[in-house]
């Protein structure tokens, strides 16, 4: 397979290699067979340019999801939006703009990106594995052409010959974390090649691979997870079975046997309101739900506190406090004088200070079914114009104000109905502000008798309710682990520097030992000069030379004061490539 060739090239510079080979493929395009076409497409897909393009495309594609309402988050808002925009609402739907993140086009982009990622990471991992096991590159002929270059001179009386010098230099570099190979150490011009910073590429590979891990973990969560919602009035108990949920969203591979039948009872729900600051007076500042939990029906009961930002974990799920409100307790008697309904009614938040809407359906009322619709106000105020509002979130002056209806509620047809809405189209109004009987206004403890002997309604008291979300996501922990790995890899990749160093020694005729060294960075490295200085100092200390900082010459230095190439004319030059290949 000639893919190998490609891989080898990537050893030196992955990004360039793929560009180079794709450029070659470009030129040969007309005569490609299907196999070559595929290979060409693959090379294109896994090129750095494509990765960049797909990344930017992903960023752009994510944006519309924040501009248009999204069905998974808010189905009813989407329906309303389509109604409100008859001109293009439907078109957006066809384009999947109400469900961007599971749309065909969004999925296509990130899947292509991840295929590209795999196609990029695998050959690079192989190439890097080989690079880590191969010897450091050969010593360039002219070290003085390296970006960092310097010389040291060991005086003759120190008695350190060239071969000893190179060995101790090797020791110094090894201690500094370089992988070192000594060459020709018994020759006239011994040298060493050293390399460090392999963790840079390892970090990069770990980073990219972990991104795949995160994606897979998210997919696992979608397959095997589930989530649901439940409203619990004080005193209510939730049992973790399918019927226990008000709403349930199973993952693709969900099985009901996954549900452990634990129970949660809401004992009491407390809210603290802000009574200090002017701007936020009356805002809730603390929610706290006292609950009693049981791992399973026979397990001992346990008291726990559920708060915002502080979920309870139970039976492999987490339970979150996501909403709350008031539930007025009512007793409704029907036309026959029997209690047709008795209990708390969940009032849905509508406005400031727990101004909430109330819908009561009484299908059991006889002879005629009854329905109520109106508002609950914890602290009722009425303006001069007769508009009522709630002046405070706490129960200082609770009030129920309702209209009533009788007739067929339509619940028997079997069509599912929203408990928070009532369709009064087919009902006959009994109480309303515009009727003779007027609306119903109730304070706790009071009872109102409906006109025409249709029954009565009593407002017995007020309880609180909470909304809880229950989630099970088996992919979550893995997503976290991979995300942490990704960050670790990222930091390595950005902060480890890959460097090469060479040292060459030789004896001067007068007995001094001449040492020259050069350093080269692979990729971005603004600390190479610092490294060169540090290496120089270490070498100088090793040989007890002073002035470790004097003779270093910077980048592209032209003068090579006592370089062997200049001084040692006549000495055979060691074999090696003609000058450093800076792209390596």
């Amino acid at each position, binding site marked *: 397979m000639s893919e190998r060739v490609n891989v080898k090239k990537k050893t030196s*510079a992955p*990004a*360039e290699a793929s560009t180079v080979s794709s450029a070659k493929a470009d030129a040969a395009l007309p005569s490609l067979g299907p196999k070559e076409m595929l290979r060409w497409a693959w090379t294109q897909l896994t090129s*750095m*340019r494509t*990765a*960049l393009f797909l*990344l930017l495309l992903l*960023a752009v594609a*994510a*944006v519309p*999801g*924040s501009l248009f309402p999204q069905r*998974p*988050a808010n189905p009813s808002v989407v329906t309303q939006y389509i109604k409100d925009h008859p001109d293009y609402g439907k078109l957006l739907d066809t384009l999947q703009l109400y469900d961007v993140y599971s749309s065909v086009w969004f999925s296509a982009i990130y899947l292509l990106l991840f295929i590209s990622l795999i196609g990029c990471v695998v050959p690079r991992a192989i190439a890097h594995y080989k690079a880590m096991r191969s010897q450091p590159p050969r010593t360039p002929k002219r070290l003085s052409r390296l*970006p*960092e270059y310097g010389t040291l001179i060991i005086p003759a009386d120190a008695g350190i010959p060239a071969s000893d010098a190179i060995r101790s230099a090797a020791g110094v570099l090894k201690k500094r974390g370089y992988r070192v190979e000594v060459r020709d150490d018994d020759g006239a011009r011994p040298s060493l090649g050293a390399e460090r910073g392999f963790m840079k590429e390892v970090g990069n590979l770990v980073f990219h691979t972990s991104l795949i891990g995160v994606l897979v973990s998210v997919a696992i969560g979608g397959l095997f997870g589930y*989530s649901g919602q439940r409203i619990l009035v004080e005193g209510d108990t939730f049992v973790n079975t399918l019927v226990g949920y008000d709403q349930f969203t199973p993952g693709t591979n969900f099985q009901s046997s996954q549900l452990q039948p634990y129970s949660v009872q809401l004992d009491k729900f407390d809210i*603290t309101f*802000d009574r*200090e*600051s*002017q*701007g*936020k007076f009356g*805002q809730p*500042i*603390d929610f706290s739900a006292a609950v009693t939990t049981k791992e399973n029906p026979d397990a001992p009961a346990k008291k726990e506190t559920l*708060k*915002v*930002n*502080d*979920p309870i974990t139970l039976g492999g799920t*987490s339970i*979150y406090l*996501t909403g709350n409100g008031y539930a007025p307790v009512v007793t409704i008697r029907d036309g026959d004088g029997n209690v047709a309904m008795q209990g708390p009614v969940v009032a849905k938040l509508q406005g400031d200070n727990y101004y909430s809407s109330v819908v009561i359906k009484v299908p059991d009322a006889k002879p005629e079914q009854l329905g109520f619709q109106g508002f609950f106000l914890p602290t009722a105020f009425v303006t001069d114009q007769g508009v009522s509002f709630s002046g405070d979130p706490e129960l200082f002056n609770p009030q129920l104000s309702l209209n009533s209806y009788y007739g067929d509620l339509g619940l028997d047809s079997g069509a599912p109905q929203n408990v928070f809405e009532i369709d009064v189209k087919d009902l006959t109004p009994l109480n309303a502000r515009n009727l003779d009987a007027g609306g119903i206004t109730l304070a706790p403890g009071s009872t109102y008798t409906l006109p025409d002997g249709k029954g009565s309604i009593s407002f017995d008291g007020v309880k609180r309710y909470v909304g809880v*979300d229950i*989630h099970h*996501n088996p992919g*979550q922990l893995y*997503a*976290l682990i991979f*995300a942490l790995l*990704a*960050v670790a890899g*990222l*930091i390595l990749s*950005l902060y480890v520097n890959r460097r090469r160093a060479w040292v060459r020694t030789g004896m001067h005729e007068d007995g001094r030992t001449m040492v020259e060294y050069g350093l*080269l*960075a692979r*990729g*971005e*490295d*603004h600390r*190479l*000069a610092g490294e060169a200085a540090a290496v120089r100092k270490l070498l100088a200390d090793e040989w007890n030379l002073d002035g470790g900082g004097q003779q270093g010459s*910077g*980048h592209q230095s032209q003068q090579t004061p006592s370089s062997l190439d200049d001084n040692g004319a006549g000495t055979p030059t060691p074999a090696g490539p003609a000058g450093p290949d*800076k*792209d390596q």
Partner: protein
Amino acid sequence: MPFGINETMGQYSELFMLLAAGTYTVAFIAFAWDLAKSSKALHAIDLKAAQAGEPAKVPAAAGVGSRAASGVDGPADRAERPSSSASGPAAGGGVVTAGADMKYAAERRAPARVAVALTILGAVIHGAGVVTRALGAGRVPWGNMYEFLTTGAFVAIAVFLLVLIRRDLRFLGTFVVGLAIIMLVAASVAYWTPVGHLVPALQSYWLIIHVSIAVLSSALFTLTFAMSALQLVQSHRQKTVAAGGEDKLRFMRLVPSALSLENLSYRINAIAFIGWTFTLMFGAIWAEKAWGRFWGWDTKEVWTFVIWVVYAGYLHARATRGWTGTRAAWLSIVGYLCVVFNFTIVNQFFNGLHSYSGL
């Protein structure tokens, strides 16, 4: 339970913010004066050089000139890019007088010194404002838009001053200080909020971790935005001058070469990207704690993700032939515009779970 509210502290805080904005304004003028004055001085040097019959517009630093002329910015030229050593301040007629390594040069720039001193003074007052705000509210001072802005401006200035210790980035002074003034003014005019408690959704130690890192990264992105914008101007200017055109923006000579700007902003962007990665992760962990799912494509999450991807694109661009230099700078700018958008428009006009802007 949160600590009590202390309104007096809150009022002190507002006074401090006002004083800080005032001090910054003077610092801003000093920075602008520095640019103008140096521009004049440079012009004088040019004139002298011209009179002496020297060509005034020869690119001085070899690295700078050759790159500007060739315009090839592939990864291959990375090795050529001076990794460290200074191509020191150029003689009078150069395109760029500022050192490539952004180290302080020997010559004294009195107005710039005054400007930095004033900025430090402003920062101290500003810091007092942030601290008193925290004391007044009895919690970390980043719980609503007003506090994000005032604290964010402080962090931006602090980061700038910290970088100034090691690098001569005074050419960014007008920009950074100007931005801090805008942020402070916007905070008090458009987003003013009295000290208050946090809504329960924000009462979590994740607020401290997640938001502080977000603010810090944004401050770093602010610096790189300024540098990338200057880089674009500088690279255009270098090309013009290299092609023998007239140098219309003389004061840009105080600004390092496009390449040095690119390199430094890359390094800062790399740190900021790691910070943003943490922001994203910690946000996800917090979302899991608060709402039961670590990712739900909420508006704020979407934009945080978009920013992350754009800067990932930026880092890729730096390694892609033909995408370094100008194009990478544009990506860095686009990324920052997304940061600003995320902070302003998304916080205010999009309804999501993150509707806690305090408005």
